[in-house]
């Protein structure tokens, strides 16, 4: 081996060791990037929160923590919602606050049972806005089949919150058919998304009116338990892991799973469903839809022999015509190497690395 080749091999080893290590939290202050679902948030969670709060359930870094109570397998999760604006095409903060949390339960294979609701309201918020959001919460909870069993209300001075923030905590009952883990992926497994991606983040961005851009895009916020229920019923034995592709988009989910399982992934870009309006707006703004947040799209990793059953289950999960999951699609498969990396075969025929972002282009998306 030549000197140069030896040096290259040595440097690559150093980098791979560094990348494999738990990220360090070294920033001197919090910036918007720390809440954006990318690498900066990963460093905050794995570098500061996990070391201090470690527990087996937390360390698994699932969407919900698993807790056994007197023989019952429960999933517990919590989520805060600070979306701006509070109402946007296709939904509002109240609906999001229910769906976001029940979806985190569903991703743990848990049927949502109960929610707590905590409201932080800004002085001056109109009663009309509040009433509308409370109704949205009630309606979304009915649709998701959960009861709101406890709550809390706080008011802060004008200027100390932006209209309203909502925190919900969800309790779910882990389905006995579910054996899910982010480290369970094996080469050959298939990757499935439950529908067109990128709608929520794009809808929010346009709803803010900061860009002089006009397109009709509606958020995809919806409960995902019906999809999970159908998957468990018809492909449960082959189901490796589920993730809802919120902040950081499908790209973040795939990267997290690839690292957790020590596998590579090869995604066929042409197979990824994206609505034309979303694709168009994303292209104008220079954003990859794979990095844009969703609020009603899950990613499933499935053993190859179960892939067809899983797709059929999803496509039938929302009524006979397919409904919300009619465009569920297999988008790629798990490979062996390069481990921890997600590659995309482009429609043009070349391949590229699909990385996670440092931070989301869009703060306060949920």
């Amino acid at each position: 081996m030549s000197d140069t080749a030896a040096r290259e091999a040595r440097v690559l080893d150093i980098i791979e060791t560094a990348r494999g290590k738990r990220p360090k939290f070294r920033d001197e202050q919090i910036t918007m990037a720390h809440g954006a679902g990318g690498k900066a948030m990963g460093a905050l969670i794995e570098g500061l929160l996990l070391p201090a709060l470690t527990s087996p359930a937390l360390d698994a870094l699932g969407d919900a923590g698993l807790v056994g109570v007197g023989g019952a397998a429960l999933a517990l999760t919590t989520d805060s919602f600070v979306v701006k604006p509070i109402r946007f095409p296709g939904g509002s903060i109240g609906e999001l606050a229910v769906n976001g949390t029940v979806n985190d339960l569903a991703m743990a294979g848990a049927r949502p049972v109960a929610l707590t609701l905590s409201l932080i309201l800004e002085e001056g918020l109109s009663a009309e806005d509040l009433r509308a959001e409370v109704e949205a919460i009630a309606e979304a909870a009915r649709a998701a089949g959960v009861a709101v069993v406890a709550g809390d209300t706080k008011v802060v001075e004008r200027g100390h919150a932006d209209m309203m923030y909502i925190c919900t905590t969800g309790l779910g009952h882990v389905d006995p058919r579910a054996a899910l883990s982010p480290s369970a992926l094996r080469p050959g497994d298939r990757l499935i998304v439950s529908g067109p991606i990128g709608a929520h983040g794009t809808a929010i961005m346009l709803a803010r009116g900061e860009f002089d851009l006009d397109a009709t895009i509606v958020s995809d916020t919806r409960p995902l338990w019906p999809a999970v229920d159908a998957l468990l019923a018809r492909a449960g034995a082959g189901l490796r892991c589920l993730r809802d592709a919120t902040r950081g988009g499908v790209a973040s989910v795939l990267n997290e799973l690839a690292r957790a399982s020590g596998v590579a992934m090869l995604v066929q870009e042409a197979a990824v469903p994206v609505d034309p309006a979303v694709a168009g707006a994303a292209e104008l703004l220079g954003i990859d839809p794979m990095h844009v947040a969703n609020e009603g799209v899950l990613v499933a990793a499935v053993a190859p022999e179960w892939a067809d059953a899983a797709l059929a289950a999803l496509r039938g999960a929302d009524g006979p015509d397919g409904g919300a999951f009619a465009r569920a699609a297999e988008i790629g498969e798990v490979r062996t190497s390069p481990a921890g990396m997600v590659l995309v075969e482009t429609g043009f025929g070349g391949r590229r690395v699909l990385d996670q972002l440092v931070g989301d282009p869009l703060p306060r998306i949920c």
Partner: protein
Amino acid sequence: MSCDDAHCITCGDDGEPERVLAIDEARGLALCQGQDGARESVEIALVAPLTVGDTVLVHAGTALARLTDADVVV
């Protein structure tokens, strides 16, 4: 979004072909539509006069050129 995030308009020195939908000559702006339907208003001083239906190359909210059929793909 940052340079090390997705790519961005200036960083990539990007340009988008967009179709002209309407022209506001008084303000020197045109309503343009990009691929698959997204719309924005665009400064057209550098390419006027335009006709509705023209395709222009837009960078950072300004039309830099009107597209023509000059290229032949080999």
